[in-house]
């Protein structure tokens, strides 16, 4: 990483003091920030698959679901209630510690990534999109129906009473929403905010390291030209599987955080629409550009939720109490759609395009015609 500039310090400071300030307006606002961070994690994962490796994935939310359900099963009384042998092992329900359950959620999602990747290796573009879309729906439908004959997922009712995350023995759900960290008391949503912020920062760092590495370059090469990538000796099969599963790990971890934060999971959180929202975040932010994706995800996650909270008050402020004309949900969809259309017209390759953002050299000078450059050739031995 490069040296930290004042701009970065200011940004970090703002992110750190944001929740107490936003929190004065109500816990719901901090909750929006929490969800924005979860979506950033998801979008960073999808960015590996779609942005770096160029594999269009419309079923990404399935990995989020896998992570969420795995965490839910490992951290709720559901399995103990259903299976006598699990109840015998752990009569009060399984309460697997998070440092086991979250990595397992990530790993299992990674395995699912390979399961999805393997049959789709020869597909590209629209065909790949259709198959991944189907995969996402299959996972959701399984979750919806795996309550009979053996009740594993509890079907459409979902799984509740999921343990909150506890860090160093302190539960982030707290007592009546207030978490007491050795004298410091913050509200539960704020505590989650800091946890998610740290994880997001780690995820961003991982993404930067990946993209500027042998592996990251291989992914981008596959995106740019698969045949040329093969001719460079890249095992495109393995690299694609690696992209699918690395992206899925992000999805799985994000899903397990979601499950613990909500305390409840059900299949309706993992619809096709969610996959499309996450894809929209990646595309809108700028395919393949990490900061672009972060900003895109933050915007698309936070703005609609913020609109939900302000549409009615704003109308009432203008038109008088009780005179709101447009329903919050309608206005939200409308403005959301409008924002996306405007952004895609204004910046078709995303808020921050991965190419335009490159360090620019001097304007391309075409020397070849004027002066027949006979280069001073170094010897090949020096190269090797």
């Amino acid at each position, binding site marked *: 990483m490069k040296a930290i500039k004042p701009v970065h310090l200011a940004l970090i400071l703002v992110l750190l003091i944001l929740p107490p300030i936003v929190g004065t307006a109500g816990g719901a606002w901090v909750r929006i920030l929490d969800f924005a961070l979860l979506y950033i994690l998801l979008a960073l994962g999808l960015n590996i698959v779609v942005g770096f490796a160029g594999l269009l994935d419309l079923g990404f939310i399935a990995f989020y679901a896998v992570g969420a359900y795995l965490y839910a099963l490992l951290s709720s009384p559901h399995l103990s209630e259903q299976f006598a042998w699990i109840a015998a092992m752990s009569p009060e329900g399984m309460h697997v510690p998070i440092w086991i359950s979250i990595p397992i959620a990530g790993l299992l999602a990674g395995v699912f990534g390979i399961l999805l990747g393997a049959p789709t290796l020869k597909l590209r573009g629209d065909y790949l999109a259709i198959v991944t879309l189907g995969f996402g729906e299959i996972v959701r439908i399984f979750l919806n129906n795996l309550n009979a004959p053996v009740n594993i997922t509890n079907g459409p009712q979902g799984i509740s009473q999921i343990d909150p995350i506890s860090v160093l023995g302190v539960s982030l759900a707290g007592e009546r929403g207030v978490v007491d960290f050795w004298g410091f008391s913050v509200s539960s949503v704020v505590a989650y905010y800091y946890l998610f912020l740290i994880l997001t920062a780690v995820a961003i760092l991982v993404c930067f390291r990946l993209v500027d590495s042998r592996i990251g370059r291989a992914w981008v090469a596959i995106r740019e030209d698969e045949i040329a990538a093969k001719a460079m000796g890249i095992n495109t099969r393995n690299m694609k599987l690696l992209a699918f599963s690395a992206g899925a790990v992000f999805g799985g971890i994000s899903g397990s955080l979601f499950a613990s934060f909500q305390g409840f999971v059900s299949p309706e959180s993992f619809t096709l629409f969610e996959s499309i929202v996450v894809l929209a975040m990646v595309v809108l932010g700028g395919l393949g550009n990490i900061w672009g994706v972060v900003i895109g995800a933050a915007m698309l996650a936070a703005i609609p939720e913020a609109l939900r909270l302000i549409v009615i008050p704003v109308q009432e402020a203008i038109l008088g109490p009780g005179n709101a004309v447009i329903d919050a949900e309608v206005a939200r969809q409308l403005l959301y759609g409008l924002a996306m259309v405007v952004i895609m017209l204004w910046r078709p390759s995303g808020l921050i395009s991965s190419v335009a953002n490159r360090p620019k050299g001097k304007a391309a000078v075409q020397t070849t015609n004027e002066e027949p450059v006979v280069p001073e050739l170094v010897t*090949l031995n020096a190269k090797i």
Partner: protein
Amino acid sequence: MTTASTASNASAVLPVSSTPLLQVQGVNKRFGGLQALSDVGLTIRKGQIYGLIGPNGAGKTTFFNVITGLYPPDSGTFELDGKPYSPRSVYQVTETGIARTFQNIRLFGSMTALENVMVGRHIRSRSTLVQTVLSTKGFRASEALIRLKARQLLEYVGVEHLADKIARTLSYGDQRRLEIARALATEPKLLALDEPAAGMNPSEKATLRQLLERIRADGISILLIEHDVKLVMGLCNEITALDRGKEIVRGSPELVRKNPDFIQAYLGKAHLEHAA
């Protein structure tokens, strides 16, 4: 012709070894009802620039794609540096030691020139996902080495001043040279070039010629498909001419040039008398 004489001088200075590097025999390839290649083969010796020529549709590029693993052959034996290899997958062929360029340039358009060459180091470097994520010492050393070698190769082909330019903004000739640098980054024993001079102006061709002779002098053999007969005759020590999927003549440029079948197939009947 001056180009031809300089080339024969060059080959006199740098004798071609008699050890075969690439031996390909009995290759057949069928596309549906079309017999694209019937029983063709070639032997490239170490330190040779080998030409593959023929009129349009003769099967040059098909043969080339079979050798480099892009098209699986129906039959044939393949041997590089004494070891048999299976041309079933492109990346394995590259790992074996044959690197190629493409007739219609296939660079990674949105990457910089330097990154394009760095991709070429892929098979000659090893860092795992874990090493990358943890940014271990070994990983950083490997990345630094990749970057260094890529820069040296850009210098080698003469486009080091364009290192940070996006590849697709480069001029045509520079893109061709960048593609050669990228292929060299895989540390090939044999460099296979599919019409490297296509679309180049005379001064670019002269530069290319020098570059290819330099590569050969540095110990890498070259397989060349080229339409520019002047360039091929000047550069190559040995030539195989194909027509309609069959080999019509194989040998030194002088031999090929005088072969009546070749003249008829490649240049047309009218040239027969002219050549004689």
